[in-house]
Each structure stands twice: as C-alpha cells, then as structure tokens.
C-alpha cells in the first residue's frame, strides 16, 4: 500500500518535472537523428525560458489566461530562430558541433541576462502573473488510484508533452520526412545519392530541436521557476540530453527516460517524507540520472548506439 500512496502523492510532481525534459529531449532526438550533435539544448532552453517569461510579463494584460500558451508559441519561435546559429555553424560552416553547442549555451545566458538587465534593470525578472495553473481533469480524475496519480493537480503541459512525443514518434517512423531525416543521420552520402537534400533536412532538424527546446525551457519557466534569471535553467538541458541517450535516440524512449529522470528529481525533493527513503542521502537520487546514463552508454544497461553520422559534417563529394 505504501508504494501506491507514494506514487499517488508523487506522480503529479513527476509529471510536471518531466514535461520540460520531454519537450527538450524530443528536440534533441530530431537534431541528433539527423546527425547534428546538439549540446546547445541547455542554451536553447534558456532562450525559450527568457522569451516565455518576457512575453508573459509584457502581454499578460492583453491576452489574459491565454498568455501562457502564447508564451510557449513565442518561445518556440524565438528559440527556433536562435538555433539557426547552430545550424549555420554546424551544417554550413562545418564547425565542430560540440564547440558550437557550447558557444550556443554561453551566448544564450549572455543574451538572456543582458536583455533582462536592459529591460528590467536587474538580473532577475519579476514573477509572472499568468503562469500555468494545476488542473484537475473532470471525470478522469474520479477513476480510482490512476485518477489521483495522473489527472489531479497536474499541468496541461504535461499531457501536451506526452502528445508531442507520440507525434514525434509518428513523424520519425511513419512519414517519408522521418525516414529521410533518419537516413541523413545514418549515412548522409547514401541519402544524398538518393536525392535527399542533406543540408536542408539538417537545418529543419536543428530548427525543430530549437523550437522544442524553447517550448521545454518556457514550460519550465512558466510552471516551476515563474521568473527568469541566469540560474533559471541550470542543467535541465543537459539532463534532457541525457534523456535522449538513455532513451536510445528514440522519441518514446526519450520520453520514458525524461519521466524517469523527473521521477528521480521529485524523489530527491519529497523523498524525505517517506520513511524507507529517509536514510538514503538525496545526493544519490540527484546524481542518478547522470550515472545511469553513463552506465547505459557503457553497455551495462542495454547498449545505447548513436546515429552513425552523428557529429560529422557532411561534405559533398568526400568519402
């Protein structure tokens, strides 16, 4: 019974902690599946959080309760545009993709905090007045056990995230575009020979990853932090990257990993209130996602194989 109680009180928290990770990890899946390593997910989340919060602060009066949703859209657009920098460097200019990602992260924090100081005169914005609120779904929440776990006191964004994961799976595995994207990530030359525009596909994939990471960052900002500052997104993007790998570059796998990491995060926060976890130092729960990812990569928990051409710039005509 204890386990059920535990799950019942934790599940809403797990769902809202994992939503930003799911969005961002899906972005990572698109980018890496097309062969572009995206260490910049963290920075793209920062830009998303920044755009979401500033839009929310500026337009809450105009749009009322619609504001948080519009904030997500704005965050997606802004982060999508921002990710073009990574695409240009990594795809067109053949830059080292990891380096370019590191630069994205630095630049995002720089621009975000610079503009925050310019516009608000301080390093941290005020709290937003139109955040997402927790909801209880009618009817579904009345189902015994499951109702309390999944449909009471959660944010709509969590369901949207799960929906996006299913859409991402469909796009990647059931559409011609998805096949093209995956083939570009595995063997760009073969794809090119078959008339697929490698550059175009990779640009689209990177921009998609930017948009999704932007939504992820904004979701985090609008449900958890409620304001923007230099420390708002500390490490969420890298944890999403871990979810991509732990989920073996598969959208549904990444979603599962993200939920699992969200679970570990919430355990580290509420774990103290459960008798059998009281003696476990929280540090183990906090580092669990990272250690597990290393173990997964090392093949101790099923082998995680990266897309073959991941991280390799495609140069036409070279072998």
């Amino acid at each position: 019974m204890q386990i059920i109680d535990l799950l019942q009180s934790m599940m809403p928290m797990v769902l809202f902690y994992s939503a930003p990770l799911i969005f961002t990890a899906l972005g990572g899946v698109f980018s890496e599946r097309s062969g572009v390593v995206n260490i910049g997910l963290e920075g793209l989340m920062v830009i998303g959080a920044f755009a979401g919060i500033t839009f929310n602060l500026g337009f809450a009066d105009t749009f009322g309760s619609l504001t948080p949703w519009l904030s997500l859209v704005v965050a997606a657009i802004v982060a999508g545009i921002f990710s073009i920098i990574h695409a240009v460097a990594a795809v067109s200019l053949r830059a080292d993709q990891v380096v370019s990602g590191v630069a994205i992260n630095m630049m995002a924090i720089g621009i975000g905090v610079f503009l925050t100081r310019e516009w608000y005169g301080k390093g941290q914005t005020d709290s937003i007045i139109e955040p997402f609120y927790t909801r209880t779904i009618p009817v579904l929440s009345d189902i015994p056990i499951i109702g309390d776990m999944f449909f009471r006191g959660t944010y709509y964004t969590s369901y949207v995230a799960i929906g996006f994961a299913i859409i991402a799976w469909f796009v990647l595995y059931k559409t011609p575009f998805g096949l093209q994207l995956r083939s570009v990530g595995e063997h760009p030359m073969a794809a090119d020979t078959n008339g697929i525009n490698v550059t175009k596909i990779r640009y689209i994939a990177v921009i998609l990853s930017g948009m999704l990471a932007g939504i992820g960052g904004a979701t985090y900002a609008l449900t958890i932090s409620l304001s923007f500052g230099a420390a708002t997104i500390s490490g969420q993007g890298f944890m999403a990257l871990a979810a991509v790998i732990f989920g073996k570059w598969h959208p549904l796998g990444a979603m599962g990993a993200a939920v699992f990491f969200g679970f570990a995060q919430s355990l580290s926060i509420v774990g103290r209130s459960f008798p059998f976890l009281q003696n476990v130092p929280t540090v183990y729960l906090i580092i669990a996602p990272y250690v597990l990812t290393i173990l997964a990569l090392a093949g101790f928990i099923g082998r995680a194989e990266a897309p073959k051409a991941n991280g390799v710039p495609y140069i036409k005509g070279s072998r």
Partner: protein
Amino acid sequence: MFSNRLFNIVVPIVSVLLGLIVGAIIMLFFGYNPIEGYLALWNGAFGNMYFFGETIRQTIPLILTGLAVAFAFRTGLFNIGAEGQVFVGWVSAVWVGISFDLPAIIHLPLAILVAAFAGALWGFIPGFLKATRGVHEVIVTIMLNYTALYSSNYLIRNVLSEGGDRTEPIAETASLRTAWLSETFGYSQVHWGFVVAILMAVLMWFLLEKTTYGYELRAVGFNEHAANYAGISVKKSIIVSMMISGAFAGIAGAMEGLGTFRYIYTHASFTNLGFDGIAVALLGANTALGSSLAALLFGSLKVGSLRMPPLSGVPSELVEIVIAVIIFFVASSYLIRWVTLRLKKGEK
C-alpha cells in the same frame, strides 16, 4: 598561398576582432558608447594594480582548464568535463588544506598533487570507457560534470563541514597567497598560482613537443589505426591522455581552493571554468603558449567586464556574448579561410 601555420595565427586574431566588433554593435544598438564601454573594460582589467592582480587571479585557472582541454584535443579527445574535474580538484585540495598539519614545503605541493590526482581519476572514467567500450567521451564527461557538482556539494555539507554551505579556511601552510603579493597588487586576491600555471604550460609544451611519449599520444590523436600499426598501445594512450587532461583541470580547482578562495562552498551551478577552458584552448590553437595568451585575454575580459556597469552602464554580460561570438568564429574558421582564400584569388 597561406600556410596552415599562418592560418592558426590569423583565425584567432580575426575572430577576436570580429567578436569585439559584434560587442560594439550591440552597445551601439542599445544606445551606449562602445568606446566608453571598452575603455571601462580596459580600465577594469589593467587600470591599476588591484585590477591587474584580479586579472591575473582570473587568468590562472583559465590557463589550466585551457591546457586541460587543449591537451585532450591534441591527443584526439574532447574533454568537456574540465568543469567536473575542477570540482573534484577543488574539494580534494581544500580537504588536504584543512585536515593536515604539515610544514608549508610539503603541505602546499601535497594539496596540489592530490588535486591533480583527483582530476586525473575523474578523467580516468571517460578515458577508460572510451578505450574499452568505445563510448564517446563528450557525453560521459558532461554527465560526470553534474555528478561532480552534486557530489562535492554533498561532501561539503556532510563531510567537510557540519551541515554548512562552506568549509572552514585552509591552513596557512597550504595557502598560495602571501601578504606581500596581495599588498603589491593593491590587496587583490592574486596568488602564486600563476607560477604553477606557467610551470604547467611549460610542462605540457615539453611533454607534447619534446618527448617520445608525447609524440605517441599525439600520434593516437592523428590516426588511431596508424598509431596502432606503429606499435603504440592506443587504449593505454587514450586513458593516459584523458588522465593528464583531468590532472590539469584538477590543478585549476586547486588554484581556486588554495589561492582565490582558500575554502570551498556549495555551488548551485558550474564555475564555467571548464566551458571557458574550451574557448581558451580553441582560441589558443591547442598549444600551451596560445592557451596561456587566450586565457589572459578571457581573464581580462571577464574581470574588466565587472567595471562596465558602474563606469559605462553596459551590463557585464556583454562580455559573455563577445566570448561566445569569438568561439563561433574560431569554430567556423572554415568561413574565415574561405573568405581569405577568395581575397587572395581576387588579388591575382
């Protein structure tokens, strides 16, 4: 035709200029005077002995993390984990600093050595996993960064202090600071770590350029298969390279623990020394001398930026943007090469 050697000098210089120009454009766009802004930056870095001391203080760990990343690059590895290696080095150095009672001549070197060893151990994990299981070191080191961050916070709270947010200060015998040096530099936080940093830069240059072993490590970086064919143990080289790289970053942590702060506190996020080290190594073309110069540049940019808000009103984050732009241009050196070659052709 331009030679590769010339490009290695042209690309960083052009990138820095482009970065500063982008910074100037941003300042203009937001209604600031870029000359005033950069003047404030210059004065904040070199304006008087105090600021100069602070610039040196900031440069010391950057040289070392830069060397860490550069060494890894030269041997065909990407160490994005300097961030975590800095933490384990910092914690270990402070641990030695507070728990032993030794004469300075032993205490200080011991603390630095233990930090180097801790960093090397943290570098061993990705090196070992790459050598034996073919796991890419980038992801492993990123994951280890967070593991190091949270584990060191745990150690600070539960082992090195009684639930506090920082440890007690280290013993004087393990300190890199001396009253005389601080006084000379206007009571800044400058410390003798710059000697350590320069020694390490010389050591890396010597190891890589002047010894057979260094040549072997580089050979693995150039071409694993050829190195293997030549009888070099590739696996061992990868592990050793990653450990040496980690040791450099561990020493960078020791500089913070024994010089700048003389204790360690719990961190909410990274110090960014490791990520900046990537920028330093790239700009320095992965050489010891280049990295040291690049570290001085970034050190002065970072320290100088703190004077920008009071003197010119420009938010200090401008410098972060400038540094990121510089990295972009260095990383995209293909663009600079292409443009220069075009210009060359045009002349003919």
